[in-house]
């Protein structure tokens, strides 16, 4: 399910060391904060990892969550990403029932959503979509009548939207 109004998206830059994820997860459970989704991987600089976490702000005020996270020695930077000022994606892989006579319909749906077919079986398809979480919900809804065998979602990823003026300026600088 896509996050709702009770959720906020934090992008947390941490040191890429063993145990850091346990510290973050441990802090959430210790303080009674709920994690809605979590995605973590090293950044382009392998000394650091980025944790993209969707938190439930009904369980605790966002300000407290951010301040407590900041107290972790391995946490370098926390940014709250406003959905209107961020680009967001989530990856979904799904195995869907698709008898040969239904296969075409499922493939069509996947294409409409800009996804791809990863694997084809006798009466099943494994498909993959990288989309905004709410679009994944829509796809899930539409594909459900065919029979969902299993679904795996990655948790949300996001980056801030780029400042277009700044981008123009840098292009201008390049051409000058």
């Amino acid at each position, binding site marked *: 399910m896509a996050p709702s109004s009770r959720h906020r998206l934090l992008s947390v830059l*941490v*040191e890429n060391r063993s*145990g850091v994820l*346990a*510290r973050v997860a*441990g*802090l959430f459970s*210790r303080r009674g904060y709920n994690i809605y989704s979590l995605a973590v991987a090293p950044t382009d600089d392998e000394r650091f990892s980025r944790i993209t976490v969707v938190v439930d702000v009904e369980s605790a*005020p966002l*300000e*407290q969550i951010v*301040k*407590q996270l*900041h*107290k*972790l*020695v*391995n*946490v*370098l930077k926390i940014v709250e990403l406003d959905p209107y000022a961020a680009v967001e994606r989530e990856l979904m892989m799904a195995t869907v029932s698709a008898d040969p006579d239904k296969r075409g319909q499922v493939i069509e749906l996947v294409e409409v959503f800009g996804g791809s077919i990863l694997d084809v079986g006798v009466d099943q398809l494994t498909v993959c979509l990288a989309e905004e979480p709410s679009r994944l919900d829509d796809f899930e809804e539409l594909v459900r009548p065919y029979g969902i065998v299993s679904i795996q979602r990655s948790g949300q990823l996001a980056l801030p939207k780029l400042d277009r003026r700044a981008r123009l300026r840098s292009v201008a600088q390049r051409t000058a």
Partner: protein
Amino acid sequence: MKLTGAQALIKSLEMQGVEVIFGMPGGAILPVYDPIIDSPIRHILVRHEQGAGHAAEGYAQVTGRPGVLMVTSGPAATNVVTPLADAYMDSVPLVCITGQVGTQSIGTDAFQEADTTGITMSITKHNWLVTDASQIPTVVAQAFHVATTGRPGPVLIDIPKDVSNGTMEWYWPEDPAAGLPGYRPTLRGHPRMVREAARLIGEAERPVIYAGGGILKARASAALARLVELTGIPVVTTLMARGAFPDDHPLCLGMPGMHGNFTAITALQKSDLLIALGARFDDRVTGRIDAFAPDAKVIHVDVDPAELGKVRQPDVPIVGDCRLVIEDLAEVIESERVRSAESGRQAPDLGPWMAQVRQWQERYPLRYDQPEQGVLKPQFVIERLRDATPDDTIVVSGVGQHQMWASQYWKFNHPNTWVNSGGLGTMGFAVPAAIGAKVGQPGRTVWAIDGDGCFQMTAQELVTAASERIPIKVAILNNAYLGMVRQWQEMFYDQRYSEVYLSPDLPDYVKWAEAMGCVALRVESPEEVDPAIDKASNVDDRPVVIEFRTDATEMVYPMVPAGASNDDVVVGPAQGEGGH
């Protein structure tokens, strides 16, 4: 220079200026115990690892330097969980070193293996599992840096046996903060916030300074005294801040909270401006939070940003070191004064507020009745002890009724003379913490005021005290009960006493203390109190234990029942309307 990991560890501790380690050896830490023999660092062998932790806490609390403890893996590491949690709650700087099974054995359920860094993650400020001997100097330097800066707290270094047996080329890191990109405590208060705080102080008619343990951690007592002189604002000192501002100062109102005195509780409650300095709005201070100081604006100064707004939303939040912020604040107030005087503006007169405060003090004094003969009141023992000991005596307590009476009836006139377990409420804290305090301040008299229940939890550390010639003094207020629990059962469970009776003479405290190498005395009546204290004061070469047989029915008053508003403080029978 090639060193083993163990040698590098001890050398790193020497580089940090460590003078004493409290600890106990065992399998996984064995390599490190060998170079200790050749080190100038004193090692104090405790009888239980928990004792090492509390001793290190006591040491840290009276010296302001980090306490160091060292134990082996597995059960030893789990035995220090309680002191680590205690130190985390009370922001006590500790560096705990634990042995760990060899790196190849980690995760195999090896003998004496426990996931020490995992277990202690939520009760340390940070912890490290060292995986190579070459990391040791860096990790030790970082550990001391993290433990002692910002909001102080315990840290833990877990060292696998093959790492301490490994070799490394010795070095010493110049800047411990270099490898900690995510750790940068804010020390200076924001100037605009400080000016805003000064403005609120200039307008308040019923201000109170709510001084917490952060004053002591920041060594801000002198700064606080200057602020009080400058403003004439009265001060309450929380359980963690007793002694941060002298009790004999006319503007000191003493301890607020569940068992605070009426005036301190009520002054906070009726205030129009709380100046919270290194305090954290603990539930034992605030009572029901939505009814706490309802008319007050709040200035909240704390070095830990997460404390600001955690419980009560401040009007003026200031992140910073208490001493630096108070000094800045005093400066701004002083220059504002000059400017106001020039422009003819007047600060509100605190006269009516102080008159009200004095009236509460007169009406609801801290008081108890000690009959001339017969039962011995615990408060009487504490008052006699207070009057018979030097002004700078260090008092260490356990947790429960005796702790509250000690905090109420002692007069703390110097910083770092009161050592107790405030946040975690760890029974058994007193004896080992007193040992650590005496080691840290060998020239001072150290009295542990303990309960009989608490004493039974960690008394074996008196063996440590006797064998190491650490002459602490212990006053057991023996009421034969888990007294505070008994009090709650009396008040809130219809006097149905469940599992709180301990017996006055099982164990025989005198024989037990003597068996542990102490001088031991028993006092059963008021007239025996002074001679026994005299005798104890003259013992200088070994620990002394006095067992005071006190009135089991005595209760701690005043009391704000749990979950009640601070408006509903219950005063004792001798304390209402001028007492009697």
